[in-house]
């Protein structure tokens, strides 16, 4: 039987069975093509080749990825990995992502793990498939597998003669094969597309308007919904005046469930209007601390446990010894994800099952959360990823999904919920406030003998974030804090004889927390790499040289990063601050370095800044970056991630801070939560170190970890003033300048 498919993204999104059917010869195709519900479930087990890829009669390959493309280009990365590992033309590979019915649970798309973990799993499945295809070809061609070669998906003998294509060998059939961890991977010397700057396929459509985002996606018979938020966290809904929206056309229903208040309408604009105009009264609620005393609040929050993340030597003794003692406190404000497109989702209940389309970075987790919320079996819930606006962590997507599901249940029809700007700024979970104390001791020669640090950060780790709609309506949801992996990079990799790093895990944090790009690693590295600069200044040594000195001499890749950075940035060796600071506008440079989480991607950066001493304005003029993430799959993708890391984090460092009153977030738009604009964007000079024979590591986060400290160090170099509190707003800079 000859089966072909042309993967239409829309068909896939709508859950059409055509694509899956193409790979299931048993039971008969014709019966299944009409009815997806009768289809045997596609394998999503992590140990099966069929879970990750399928090949049709024409040799076209579909990759099933649990990791999703959040605008990072990983979809092309996966395409390149599979095209190379299978030796098929790039054009023959397509990727389906984040559909709980079709794709494996490879974990949420976060932590710079998509290529490093997700891509590597897919690569091994492709290598296993390739081995099996060679064995099958050997039988059919009456040859030994080692005498065969493959080009463009066609296997033949090295000596020439008969050939057989992948399509002929496996087309439309399952491999029914376990992923073999020992299946040999292609020799990097033979890569054809891995490591090449292959252009992403989504960009032309994004530029010309043809690309379907979650926000553009529509379902037949769909209604629109919006949610009226309490004016304060914890406020109780007292009264709703439905007459207040009588004049709005197309209002279908007001949905009230506990403190959840939503409106369902026929058009999107009516949903916007109804949410604005519906009159409701709420109880007064004041649950948040005084914003002006945020850091006192954090310091006095009950500690539920201490995570000692490193303990080398004996810091108690070493700190007590004679020497030059340094101590400092750093803090890092609460941030929002600030997705340009507010969260959006569509849900539909049909025949006892729930299907939910969203831009969730974790559809498998969302599926479990929605199942819990509606007391359903996860088997009856399907979550489908549709590309959204960049989220940079767990923003409001899952909450919009829960909103839409609650409204869809009330409506008995599919309901689309489009969050407003205020919903997104006010109600997405936030990057929690972080407070860090550091101490060090230097002996008479200026050598660092002890390093101690204490991080005040909320308890919890990467998990599921409580769903707002479930909380408001008192439906089941998890109530644990899930701030992300925020203890990482509290440790330092430098060779210091006595080190103790402790994370005090706090019982609560003012606003619902979640991970935002480089969670914890950014805040922790800010403190570590700035404090190291304070030590360099105290020891009167060049800060880059200090980093080289304390790097393990066996860590050649780390040393190469620093060496190349010195050359790239034309680093002038001298201690900071610069001598002879004069004039209103002064220039400086700062360095920062990390081996991410002590085990992966190496990055070094130098920031160049200009500080206007009359008003405290900082201009970041240039960033130099040396970057080693091992094997580079797509250099354009990596460079885009590095640029994004720098620009986004420069914004976070210079400008961003959530404001709140005792009831709720008050920075609900771009005027009250400004971000970096074009005139403020630094020049970025990148040197990528590609190591094709090494493991591929992540690039989505590590550079961001260094931006706040590099800027702080550069401002210190320029002015002699040390900035220890993100964001570096002009008033804080002016205060710091006064103390110089």
């Amino acid at each position, binding site marked *: 039987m000859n089966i072909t498919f042309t993967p239409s993204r829309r068909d896939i999104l709508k859950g059409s069975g055509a694509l899956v059917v193409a790979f299931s010869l048993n039971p008969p195709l014709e019966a299944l093509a009409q009815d997806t519900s009768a289809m045997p479930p596609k394998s999503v087990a992590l140990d099966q080749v069929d879970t990750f890829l399928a090949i049709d009669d024409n040799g076209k390959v579909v990759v099933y990825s649990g990791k999703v493309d959040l605008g990072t280009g990983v979809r092309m990365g996966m395409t390149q990995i599979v095209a190379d590992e299978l030796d098929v033309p790039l054009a023959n590979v397509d990727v389906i992502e984040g559909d709980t019915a079709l794709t494996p649970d490879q974990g949420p798309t976060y932590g710079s793990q998509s290529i490093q973990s997700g891509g590597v799993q897919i690569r091994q499945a492709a290598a296993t498939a390739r081995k099996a295809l060679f064995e099958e070809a050997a039988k059919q061609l009456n040859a030994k597998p080692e005498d065969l070669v493959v080009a463009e998906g066609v296997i033949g003998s090295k000596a020439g003669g008969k050939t057989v294509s992948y399509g002929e060998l496996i087309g439309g059939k399952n491999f029914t094969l376990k992923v073999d961890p020992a299946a040999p991977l292609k020799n990097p010397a033979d890569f054809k597309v891995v490591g090449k700057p292959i252009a992403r396929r989504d960009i032309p459509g*994004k530029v010309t308007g043809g690309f379907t985002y979650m926000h553009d996606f529509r379902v037949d018979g769909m209604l629109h919904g919006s949610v009226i938020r309490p004016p304060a966290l914890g406020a109780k809904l007292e009264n709703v005046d439905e007459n207040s929206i009588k004049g709005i056309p197309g209002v279908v229903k007001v949905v009230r469930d506990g403190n959840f208040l939503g409106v369902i309408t026929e*058009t999107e*604009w009516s949903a916007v209007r109804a949410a604005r105009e519906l009159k409701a009264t709420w109880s007064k609620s004041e649950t948040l601390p005084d914003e002006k005393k945020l850091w006192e609040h954090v310091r006095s929050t009950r500690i539920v446990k201490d995570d000692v993340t490193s303990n080398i030597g004996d810091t108690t003794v070493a700190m007590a010894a004679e020497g030059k003692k340094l101590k400092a406190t750093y803090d890092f404000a609460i941030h929002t994800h600030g997705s340009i497109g507010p969260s959006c989702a569509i849900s539909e209940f049909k025949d006892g099952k729930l299907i939910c389309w969203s831009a969730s970075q974790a559809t498998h987790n969302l599926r479990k959360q929605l199942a819990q919320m509606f007391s359903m079996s996860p088997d009856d819930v399907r979550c489908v990823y549709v590309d959204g606006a960049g989220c940079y962590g767990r923003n409001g997507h899952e909450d919009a999904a829960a909103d839409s599901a609650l409204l869809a249940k009330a409506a008995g029809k599919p309901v689309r919920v489009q969050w407003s700007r205020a919903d997104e700024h006010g109600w997405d979970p936030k990057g929690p406030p972080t407070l860090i104390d550091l101490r060090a001791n230097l002996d008479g020669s200026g050598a660092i003998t002890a390093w101690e640090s204490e991080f005040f950060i909320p308890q919890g780790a990467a998990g599921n974030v409580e769903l707002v709609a479930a909380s408001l309506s008192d439906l089941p949801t998890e109530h644990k804090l899930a701030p992300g992996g925020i203890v990482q990079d509290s440790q330092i990799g430098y060779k210091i004889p006595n080190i103790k790093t402790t994370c005090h895990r706090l019982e609560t944090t003012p606003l619902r927390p979640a991970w935002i790009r480089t969670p914890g690693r950014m805040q922790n590295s800010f403190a570590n790499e700035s404090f190291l600069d304070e030590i360099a200044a105290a020891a009167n040594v060049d800060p880059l040289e200090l980093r080289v000195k304390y790097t393990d001499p066996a860590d050649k890749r780390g040393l190469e990063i620093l060496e190349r950075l010195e050359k790239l940035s034309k680093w002038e060796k001298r201690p900071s601050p610069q001598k002879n600071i004069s004039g209103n506008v002064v220039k400086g440079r700062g360095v920062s370095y990390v081996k991410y989480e002590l085990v992966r991607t190496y990055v070094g950066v130098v920031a160049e800044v200009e500080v206007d001493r009359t008003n405290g304005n900082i201009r970041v003029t240039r960033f130099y970056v040396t970057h080693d993430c091992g094997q580079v799959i797509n250099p354009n993708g990596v460079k885009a991630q590095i640029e994004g890391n720098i620009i986004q984090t420069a914004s976070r460092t210079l400008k961003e801070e959530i404001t709140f009153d005792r009831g709720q977030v008050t920075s609900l738009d771009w005027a009250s939560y400004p971000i970096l604009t074009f005139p403020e964007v630094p020049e970025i000079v990148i040197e990528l170190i590609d190591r094709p024979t090494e493991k591929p590591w992540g690039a989505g986060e590590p550079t961001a970890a260094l931006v706040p400290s590099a800027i702080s160090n550069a401002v210190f170099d320029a002015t002699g003033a040390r900035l220890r509190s993100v964001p570096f707003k002009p008033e804080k800079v002016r205060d710091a300048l006064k103390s110089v």
Partner: protein
Amino acid sequence: MTIALKVNGKSQQVDADPSTPLLYVLRNDLGLHGPKFGCGLGQCVACTVHVNGRATFSCILPIAAVGDREVTTTEGLLENGKPNKVQQAFIDEEAAQCGYCISGMVMRAQALLKMKPHPTEEEIRNHMRPNLCRCGTHAAILRAVRRAATA
């Protein structure tokens, strides 16, 4: 009520609440998904379209106020179905990460280059200042605008 609009060179009739912002009509009634909803406040510029050639925030312009002016979206910039010079420059520079802001970027860059075919770096940056991007694609977007200006 029924309102007549001229969009991408075509006359269109839509039946909508006259307070509806142009953005919603373009997206939901006319199926033009280039312009994006970002804030509804005229702060992020993702919704930018041209109204008689001027870059305009469609999220805060009620359809009743459009009148007989010509509305153009990024879809309307296509020439014989192919990307125009500015769009092609964005494609060539891969100037999109999530890309949600990109239609607005293209529309605003197009308006600049129409007024000023060879802008300075400072003019480009100042002109693009209102357009927000969260992925940090600015550097690539600037390369794209420069490329379009020299193409």
